[in-house]
């Protein structure tokens, strides 16, 4: 119980820091943030007065003390009011993000799960087989794990999209189909999602694989694995219940880091595929100087990652009995 309370407390603090960071960042910039933004926008065309107004609302150009602005900002946050999106004026920024969330949630969520499962299962197996020919795969996966997501995306687009014409290269679904819960639309969304998902899985699986493999090798030198072998247990049980089960713990505990990598990679991957997800939205917001939207996207991504980590920490509490100290 104490474990869970501590974790919950930690995530509350982390959320607060993220929210505050989101508030402070634009204000830490030298000079008046709105002036900076306006100066930037001027070069890309005149700023519509409505958008200027939206900006002023967002940044509370009123020369209120910082603390008053902060309270105001927090109040807006709880009502989901991030201001109006500049590039999609007059849609509220939060609505723009809300449209993008399901796409990213499904794409990144599924890819993460698939990559995690493949990495863990295959990595454990490589660890189990250490010292055999399978070690030759290690340099290969070291190489793959160093490939940037977006470049892999470009290469896959080139090969499977433009050369072989197997998969579409941009978008989230066939624009001729009306988005609705019809088999046709879902089929199209899956078809469009294959290549981005494959990119994310391929780019992230090697890192997971290598770390699991190394954990597995370490775990197999543990006394309890030797005990299990001495007990004459079947290979399958020694592998699964004794070695792999323990080797998994650090990879679950380190989930925060791997999720971080995947989220980073997904942002650029979505961009390559013009995938209508949160990452692509963030980039468009940046390119259009759509600050309300940027803030909303950043917060949504951060909260989602924090939430995922909280869930994983709760799961960890279940799979590692040592966290459940009764007293």
């Amino acid at each position: 119980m104490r474990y869970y309370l501590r974790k919950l407390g930690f995530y509350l603090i982390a959320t607060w820091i993220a929210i505050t960071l989101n508030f402070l960042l634009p204000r830490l910039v030298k000079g008046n943030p709105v002036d900076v933004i306006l100066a930037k926008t001027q070069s890309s065309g005149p700023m519509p007065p409505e958008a200027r107004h939206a900006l002023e609302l967002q940044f509370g150009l009123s020369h209120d003390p910082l603390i008053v602005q902060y309270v105001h900002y927090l109040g807006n946050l709880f009502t989901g009011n991030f201001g109006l999106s500049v590039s999609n004026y007059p849609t509220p920024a939060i609505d723009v993000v809300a449209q993008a969330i399901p796409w990213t949630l499904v794409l990144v969520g599924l890819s993460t799960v698939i990559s995690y499962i493949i990495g863990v299962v295959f990595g454990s197996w490589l660890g189990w087989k250490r010292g055999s020919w399978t070690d030759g795969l290690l340099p290969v996966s070291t190489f793959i794990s160093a490939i940037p997501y977006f470049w892999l995306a470009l290469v896959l687009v080139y090969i499977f999209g433009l050369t072989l014409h197997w998969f579409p290269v941009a978008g989230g679904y066939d624009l001729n189909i009306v988005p609705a819960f019809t088999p046709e639309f879902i089929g199209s969304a899956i078809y469009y999602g294959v290549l981005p998902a494959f990119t994310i899985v391929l780019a992230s699986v090697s890192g997971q694989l290598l770390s699991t493999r190394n954990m597995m090798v370490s775990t197999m030198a543990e006394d309890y694995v030797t005990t299990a072998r001495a007990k004459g247990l079947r290979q399958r049980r020694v592998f699964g219940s004794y070695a792999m089960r323990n080797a998994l713990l650090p990879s679950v505990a380190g989930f925060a880091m791997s999720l971080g990598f995947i989220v980073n990679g997904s942002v650029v991957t979505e961009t390559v595929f013009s995938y209508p997800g949160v990452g692509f939205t963030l980039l468009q917001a940046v390119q259009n100087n759509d600050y309300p939207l940027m803030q909303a996207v950043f917060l949504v991504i951060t909260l989602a990652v924090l939430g995922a980590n909280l869930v994983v920490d709760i799961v960890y509490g279940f799979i590692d009995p040592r966290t459940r100290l009764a007293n």
Partner: protein
Amino acid sequence: MTFSQQELAEPDLSKSEPDLSDETGGRRIVRRGSWKFWVGIAICALFAIIAALGPLLAPNPNQTNSDGLQAPSLQHLLGTTNIGQDVLTQVIAGTTGSVIIGVVAGALTVVLSMIFGVGGAFLGGKWDEASSLLSNVFLVIPGLPLLIIVTDYVQSRDILVIAVVISLVSWAGAARVLRAQTLSVRSRDYVDAARVASESTWRIMLREILPNLMPIIASQFVFGALGAILAEAGLSFLGLGAPGGRSWGSILFFAQNAQAISLGAWWWFVPPGLCIAVLGAALGLINFSIDEQINPRLRTLAVLRPKAKRGGK
């Protein structure tokens, strides 16, 4: 039989890893660097040389000529861009930028992670709690979105500013690793001995603790450099890199903007990405062998031996 069994044992018995091939604290043959290490070093050295000579080898990466979008030929070994820039020249110039980013950001990451990781763990108490809370928070806040936002707010982006911002966003993982290792080193006997001998805190830190952290620090530097090169490539590719700055990522940005892919100009977008992957893999190999040094269990081949031939000490 009223004595403790520990006393008959080797002095270091309790610390030794339980390992069947190494009964109790056996001596280890450390193969000085595996092939992984040397291959990694060789590739990194090659890129470092190219980066250093970059301004000489590729003085005018932006020089254009009339032959736009040419496939590789003897004249242009890696072909040309849409406005007739030589891709090889661009890749060489980009090497300089990417390597600088890697080195600077890697070093800064180490400095930051030592302040928060080693410092916190060494000073203990409130310092430790505060710094480990901070690093855990930074660990769970997604890096690239934060990076995108921060770089967007920074007005004067040059390549060094980008390096600083990248390390500001990404030091947390390294800090956590260093903290764990510091805690473990701190509790070892020789540190206690130094304390008892009332050596100064700084002296203990520099003489007793830091040397034992070196392999991990090295590995975190390598990891930080790798992360920074990838992050910068991502940023530049998104058009958020240093304006006018030249790196592998920025080449890809221009390639993407000029529809290099739909035009089939593979020679434009393949080489820079391949460079990132090869340098990244080299750094990964170095880290892999550092890991094997730190954690002997990972060494796949037989390099453990019991001290069967040893008598006294």
